[in-house]
């Protein structure tokens, strides 16, 4: 384990695209020009873009070499907390590229797209079943747009009751997207502090909940990897003052089919199909962030919605109370296909098993690492656990140093410095698709890193040593921004 891998000689240098430009080359099979040239006004014509010319193998080698500088779930364990970097099944990739899906135009008459519409309608139903909510819209393109959809739904619902409110309660453990999404709806976030156990207390919520507050955004399980045990009581307090409960479902992987979101008092919930439901993250998207709602919010869901009439699926905008449209078309259908295929492959028992194993893996890892890393909340966790660098501070070794050193052992680092409530946070989410052996290897690597932190701290400060580049100068990048070549 502690022996480094021998250098392989496969880490090729590769210039920027335009450094390889040779005008006259092409990597594109140009269709025949089988029509006459039409007149074009000189004052409309432009010069065309300054793009480099390459040939086909040039393009292939360029991107193949770049890919070799990247680390993905297929390369190794990628335990980024709150990101659910589980295995992305390959059959799902294949079926998402079937011509009848990939080449389908979104404005075709509905009769010509029945298969795609049926897939969407069934996926809506599956997600409603898994969360125990009443209705679903698949339209939001990612988690943050799902949050925005949730805020818009609450805004529209309150408005329909003739109520206008200006604030929203957001716990200190929340993702930054929560306050940013709320602000788009004109809501001012009111911060509420988690209790000693790392979860919200009903008391803290009742202190800030008032009749100018639209509701609460609560992540459950929260970003400390803990289940918000008081959710039902908190929901009662919020509802009691006429507010709504929004649940950020980024961490749904812990509780698929295990929590009755409706009975917990949740009015609206978003899911991340690219986390929980196995669609790959793509190096930063595309994702999909469906919203699931209780019945009273259903009339406000984004349009168009899928409706069935006489056994035929249609798209309908005839929902006068709807918050409107969020996406150019119907949302990220290509991502929905993968989530649908995943659910069909797993079945209800399989999803529940996946959540159980995700939680088992996290708890196992927590037990194995808590002797070498400070664990601020030593309690049974859900799908992730949060440590800190407190034990390493005497050596002036930080979370960042340990994260960078982990790379030298062939692991992607965990999420670092989040959640903000833990100073120097190290947030680890192994997911259910990592095996016992792989987790043991990760634990051992991390133990070595913590040993090195006291024995040879400079080794950590100088890491990583085995990546394509050493630590990069982020100050230079931000002081003298160079965003294009």
């Amino acid at each position, binding site marked *: 384990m502690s022996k480094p891998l021998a250098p392989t000689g496969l880490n090729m240098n590769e210039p*920027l*695209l335009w450094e390889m430009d040779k005008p006259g080359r092409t*990597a594109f099979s140009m269709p025949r020009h089988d029509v006459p040239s*039409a007149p074009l006004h000189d004052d409309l014509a432009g010069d065309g*873009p300054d*793009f480099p010319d390459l040939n086909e193998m040039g393009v*292939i080698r360029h*991107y193949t070499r770049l890919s*070799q500088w*990247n680390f993905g*779930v297929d390369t190794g364990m990628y335990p980024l907390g709150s990101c659910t970097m589980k295995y992305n099944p390959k059959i799902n990739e294949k079926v998402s*590229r079937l011509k*009848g899906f990939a080449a*389908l*135009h*979104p*404005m*075709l008459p509905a009769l010509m*797209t*029945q298969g*795609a519409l049926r897939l969407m309608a069934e996926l809506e139903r599956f997600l409603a079943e898994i969360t*125990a909510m009443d209705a679903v819209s698949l339209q939001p393109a990612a*988690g*943050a*747009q799902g949050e*925005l959809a949730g805020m818009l739904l609450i805004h529209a619902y309150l408005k329909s009751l003739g109520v206008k409110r200006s604030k929203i309660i957001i716990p200190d453990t929340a*993702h*930054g997207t929560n306050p940013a999404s709320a*602000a*788009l*709806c004109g809501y001012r976030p009111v911060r509420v502090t988690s209790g000693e156990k790392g979860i919200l207390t009903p008391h803290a919520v009742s202190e800030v909940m008032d009749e100018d507050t639209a509701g609460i955004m609560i992540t459950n399980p929260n970003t400390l990897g803990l*289940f918000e*045990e008081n959710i039902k009581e908190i929901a009662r307090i919020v509802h009691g003052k006429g507010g709504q409960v929004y649940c950020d479902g980024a961490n749904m992987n812990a509780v698929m*089919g*295990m*929590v009755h979101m409706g*009975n917990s008092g949740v009015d609206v919930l978003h899911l991340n199909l690219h986390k929980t439901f196995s669609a790959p993250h793509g*190096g930063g*998207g*595309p994702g999909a962030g469906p919203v699931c709602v209780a019945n009273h919010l259903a009339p406000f869901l984004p349009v168009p919605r899928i409706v069935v009439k006489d056994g035929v699926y249609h798209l309908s905008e005839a929902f006068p109370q709807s918050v*409107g449209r969020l*996406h*150019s078309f119907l*949302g990220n259908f*290509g991502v929905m296909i993968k989530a649908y295929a995943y659910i*069909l492959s797993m*079945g209800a028992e399989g999803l529940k098993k*996946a959540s159980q*194993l995700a939680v*088992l893996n996290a708890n196992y890892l927590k037990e194995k690492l808590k002797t070498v890393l400070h664990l601020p909340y030593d309690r049974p966790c859900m799908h992730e656990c949060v440590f800190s660098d407190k034990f390493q501070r005497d050596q002036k070794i930080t979370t960042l140093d340990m*994260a960078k050193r982990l*790379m030298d052992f062939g692991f*992607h680092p965990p999420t670092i410095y989040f959640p903000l409530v833990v100073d120097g946070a190290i947030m680890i989410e192994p997911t*259910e698709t990592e095996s016992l052996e792989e987790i043991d290897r990760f634990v051992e690597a991390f133990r070595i890193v913590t040993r090195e932190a006291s024995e040879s701290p400079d080794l950590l400060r100088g890491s990583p040593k085995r990546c*394509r580049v050493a*630590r*990069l100068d982020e100050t230079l990048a931000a002081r003298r*921004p160079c*965003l*294009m070549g």
Partner: protein
Amino acid sequence: MRYLPHTREDIAVMLQAVGLESMDALFSAIPDDCGRRDIPDLPEPLTEWELDEHMAALSGNGAVTGHHDNPHMVFLGAGRYEHFIPETISYLLGRSEFTTAYTPYQPEMSQGTLQAIYEYQTLTARLLGLDAANASLYDGASALAEALLMATRITRKKKVALSGLVHPHYRQVVQTYLRPSGIEIVDLPYLSNGTTDTSALGAMEDLAGVAVQSPNFWGCIEGLAEIGDMCEKSGTLFITVFTEPLAYALFKNPGDQGAHIACGEGQSLGIPRWFGGPGLGMFACRSQYMRNMPGRLVGQTEDKQGRRGFVLTLATREQHIRREKATSNICTNSSLCALMAAMYMASLGGTGIRELARLNYDKAAYLKGALQRAGFRIPFESPCFNEFVVEFPPGFKATYDRLLRRNIVAGLPLDPWYPELKHHYLLCVTETRTRSHMDAFVEEVTS
């Protein structure tokens, strides 16, 4: 289940290590009244082979061109365009180091994504004629909404003008995004030549931004330069929108015509239509507004040994640092689609993209001319790129339906959005339509 590695023995070992008797004990934190005893009502799990068959059947009835069992001829554009996509792109997307990575938070392990996105930003900025492009937004519609919000932040004014010839779905999305903040949206009408009537702009001094699409929803090229001049004089930000960026390989780009921000949809650059998503929100602006931009930005820097490298930068604009004061709530964007677009632009090159754009222009002109000669009216005389409006005679709906039964989609009827435009259809032609396809189509509509 093949995705789950745990054997019975593994589970026993792990439960013992955490000191629990059963898997259920892991969930003791969930109160009884929040948990559920029932099992979600989902279909029995499918094998890989059953799934493959099921999905083939579901996709089988989709009306797409070149589908061997079920071939269609689709003349639809309107924001999603049929272009040939080189096999190299789908092949390269099989490089799972790109596909299965997260947002590049750890640059030393993500130089592949980071360099590729830096190259995407560069090619995008060059195509649009502006100084800086971001790493992508979700799609064209949300990119426009973000641009308008950005204009209101920069100018601190709360009113924007939006051309009525911006894609109707985009206008709906703008409503959704802007309405809760109380921003007023003024709709600009259209002229009889098929372009935006900007005559009212002179009288509006309190505008944060003016958004005009070119080529517009009807395929017509707008006189952007004039609107740019008007905006420059009045201190209004000029936002140009697009659904078909290929046009800028032939026509003048937004930056050269005074755009402060250019944004829109990049699907036509090598991304399948996928029933409308995922797409690619492209977004670029002048350098002075860089710090007001929404979304991720990749910047060039150096490592400790002075080697070139790339990082996510200017992150203080973003939600994870600035929270409710962020320039946008966006986190996950459309990175893999940006990668596809970069691969496509690199495959075409400067020479190829000009030729391809010209081909699209000529093909659309050919069909437009042929329909005109066949006696159909072309209501808007402004130059167009690869789509255009045709006015068919009253009663054409029956012909349209007959063609549908023959697997031909004769464009998009416009009256749902423009009730005054009865029997007007928006038709799109790209390099994928041959001359014989188009001749056959003209014959079908006239017979």
